[in-house]
């Protein structure tokens, strides 16, 4: 396979991947709801800030 053909294949593969990922629904990559964000914010921001203030 020539270098030119190889480059064309790479770009064709890239185009295919772009189309697949762009058109894929969020649900196909796992659910992630507002509850997840709330849990993460509580774990990562709210509780740590409270503890830091109390320990000051």
């Amino acid at each position, binding site marked *: 396979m020539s270098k030119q053909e190889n480059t064309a294949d790479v770009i064709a*593969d890239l185009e295919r991947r772009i189309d697949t990922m*762009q058109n894929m629904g969020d649900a196909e990559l796992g*659910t*992630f709801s507002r509850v997840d964000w709330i849990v*993460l914010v509580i*774990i990562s*921001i709210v509780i*740590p800030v409270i503890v830091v203030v109390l320990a*000051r």
Partner: protein
Amino acid sequence: MSGQQPARGEEISTKLLSVYGREPLLPDDREYKTWSANGTCFAYAIATWCFLTGGYAASLVGAVQGMVCLIAGNLIGVFLVSASLSAGCQRYGIEQIDFCKPSFGQNGARVVLIFYLLNMIGWSGLILVMFGNGIVNIVEALGYHAPSWLVGAGVALGIWLTYIITTRGVHLLSLFNSIITPALIVIIVFMFYMLISSHGWAEILAAEPLDPLPSPWMNYAVCLELGVASGMSWWGGIGFLARNTKTRRNAIYPEVLQLGLIFGIVCSIALFSGLVVGSDDPTKWMVPLGGVFMGVLALLFVALANITSTSVSLFASGLALRHVPALRKTGWRMIIALTAVPLAFFVVWPNELYDLGDAFLAYNGTMHAPVGGILLVDYFFLRKQQLHLRSIFEAAPSGQYYYLGGFNILALACVVIGQLTYFWVYNPFTDEAQPIFQFLPASIAAFILPAAIYWVGMRYLRIGGPLKAGAEEPVVADKLVEPNI
């Protein structure tokens, strides 16, 4: 049968190309499920950098304040930088420098790439020096004399082992982690057990900081800053990990829990060890705490975990180097070899460069905070989690993320503003600080201010360029005009 082989070979070839290159990773290409994502993050988290961070904290504060600063600071820092990176890199299967292109521009992202490579190589070098120090301590614990060149030789050995693992791919890395991770859990639990059984809580809580600053509030504030900045310094590995996960929850929860919480807890155990043993050198803790046999065993496994961590760093650096046009078609082994070349300086001057570790930590805080703030605002508040994937791979000016000459000047200016803000709030080289530093870590200030300026500039002043499809937007072709891959 033979007729199927080329198709299979082609399939493997394109899959490898995407894994070792920058193409979007499709869900079927991704390696990490729940266990392996947590395992990789865990192994990444408990390498010697947490011992380094814990040792540094032991210089400033006691056990309780240190534990609070390290755990809380890490959680805050990791979450702030990982929220957008995890969500975006996992959703589109892209690595983090590509994720920077919507906000920084096609060429502006390369400025971030320079920071990124310096970060990855710096951390890798420091860890490899600690790997070398670990070998020295093992040799000495066994009653032999360790020559001065052994640290450098250990770094060279570490580079070679890292090269072997990294060039064999993510699968081997994942397999390696599945063996090392349980062993490290045992070692850390054992370390903690020895701390409690031999010294007890009372002694740990009563231990004085090793080398505190004159002002008590300053010690607490600097230690909190250390926690937040080290949490943010995970920026370098997050995109790589998230891109390889199959589900969104696996992209962010392991990062927050392992890189934030577990890292903070292990840092705290390191802090206790430093306070009790009276040394901030992590490789000197294991033998006094565990005795010769267990100490050497612990050092051995921690050293192996360091190799795993360095492998992840080098893997991510290799992917990032694909952004350099001259290296886009270079073989993976050559890419990794090139990434490892700067580490040779750590072979020649291991201790001299290791002593610059404090300055390196400060540099991390000034870089990751503003970049993290800009990416968060850009992805969640400006683009509403919708990226135009084709434009990320489009080098022609017709792409949506080309901006002015490939640079979003506003984003780059905000990074500079963030760095200046950091040094205004707290100068880590002189330990001078503004009164606001009592209430606000410098990294958080350097995160919020650039993010706010960027949001106002992009949303209302439209300094950087158009955000959504519209009449004034560049025409985006259905096919790539000038692929940047």
